[in-house]
């Protein structure tokens, strides 16, 4: 049987994907929408890792001519990322124990 490389997705990554399902967002918007679950210091480490895995894409915002400072970055979930999220949620639901099942 051929080996299939399954993508690994952490709980934080699936949470970020769920937030990005609604559309393009800034990193800071993700932190604010997370209710304290995502931190400012590490959000871009997570997003960078997700970008390498192909779960999200990013682009720099358009800046007005002569604008000072660095451009902010906008993140979008890719179709692949959303597919992984869906599969992850299905798997979690399938494996979750109901109280009756847990009692045996």
């Amino acid at each position: 049987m051929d080996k299939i490389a399954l993508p690994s997705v952490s709980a934080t990554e699936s949470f970020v994907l769920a937030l990005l399902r609604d559309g393009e967002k800034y990193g800071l918007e993700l932190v604010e929408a997370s209710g304290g679950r995502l931190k400012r210091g590490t959000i871009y480490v997570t997003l960078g890792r997700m970008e390498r895995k192909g779960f999200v894409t990013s682009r720099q915002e358009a800046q007005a001519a002569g604008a000072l400072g660095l451009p902010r970055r906008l993140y979008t979930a890719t179709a692949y990322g959303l597919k992984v999220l869906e599969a992850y949620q299905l798997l979690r639901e399938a494996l979750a124990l109901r109280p009756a099942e847990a009692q045996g």
Partner: protein
Amino acid sequence: MTGRGLERFGRAILRASTFETIVAPAIADLQYESRSGRWASVRAYAGAWRGLAAAVALELGSDCRDTLRHSQLGAAVLPSLLALGLSFAIVSPWGIWLDLGRLRPWHHDVVLLALLIPGVLASTLPLAAMPVARVLAGAGTPGSMRSAVLLAAAVVSTLTIADWLLADRTSDLQRELTTASIMSVRTSEARRPLWELRERFQPRFEHIAGRADDPRWRTARAAAELRRSRIERHTRAALLFTVVAYALLGAAGATRLRHQAGRREPWRSALGAVLIFASFAAMRVVFQRVLYVQTIFGPLVLVWPPAVLLVLVAILAALRARRVSPKPT
């Protein structure tokens, strides 16, 4: 402009890709939020600095992993690590044996410290030298020199702080040792557990401890104990200096390895690592013996010249390896 210093610092120490992915968006957020008031600005600053710290940690981790994965350098580094472990495993009991000969059996705290310090050095010194050796051998990725230097600096700073804390925590014990030397505690008394001896002699320790610090009351034995502890402190610091020698000799070995790949080369590299520490110890002993005759006891003279000599030899070896090795085709 807010965050300009942080941006310059980040660009200087990180690879461009890491900076653009992790730190630049955090600085952009900082610049955006700085218009919303002081509190938001402070939070954004904290977030940007945490982002920078996370990016540095990521780069250092990947540099260390790359070093071990790099086939030729990995072949040189892994046996070297083994050799360093072995060197320290041999040196530690030797040091304890020497200490036991000089100290009383109840000084178990000292024996524990003698075990701990070489253990810490053994595990961290090669870690500091690995990325530097790799970059000097010309196998580093862009920006890895900055990461390598940062890692080495972080390890050396941590060791220095740990060493200082250790010295601070054991200063009472050192004083008691000096005082016990002055008091010439009888062997039968000295064989008792340290806590029992402390309880019994505490008032006298305190009384004499004050005199031990006073040069007028200092006996020859006390002076010798103090001198010995000072020399040991300097030796530990000089051992940190040998990181440079290890890195340079590692670079020399790796440069040759690229062109003379053979089964024996990694083991020669391991032998080289053992030789570094053995030569440092031997040179130190020779310096002490020679200078003792001249009645020179200053740690700066006794301890540091061997370390400096070792680094000079390592620099020469690294330069020669670069000159002798043919350019890769």
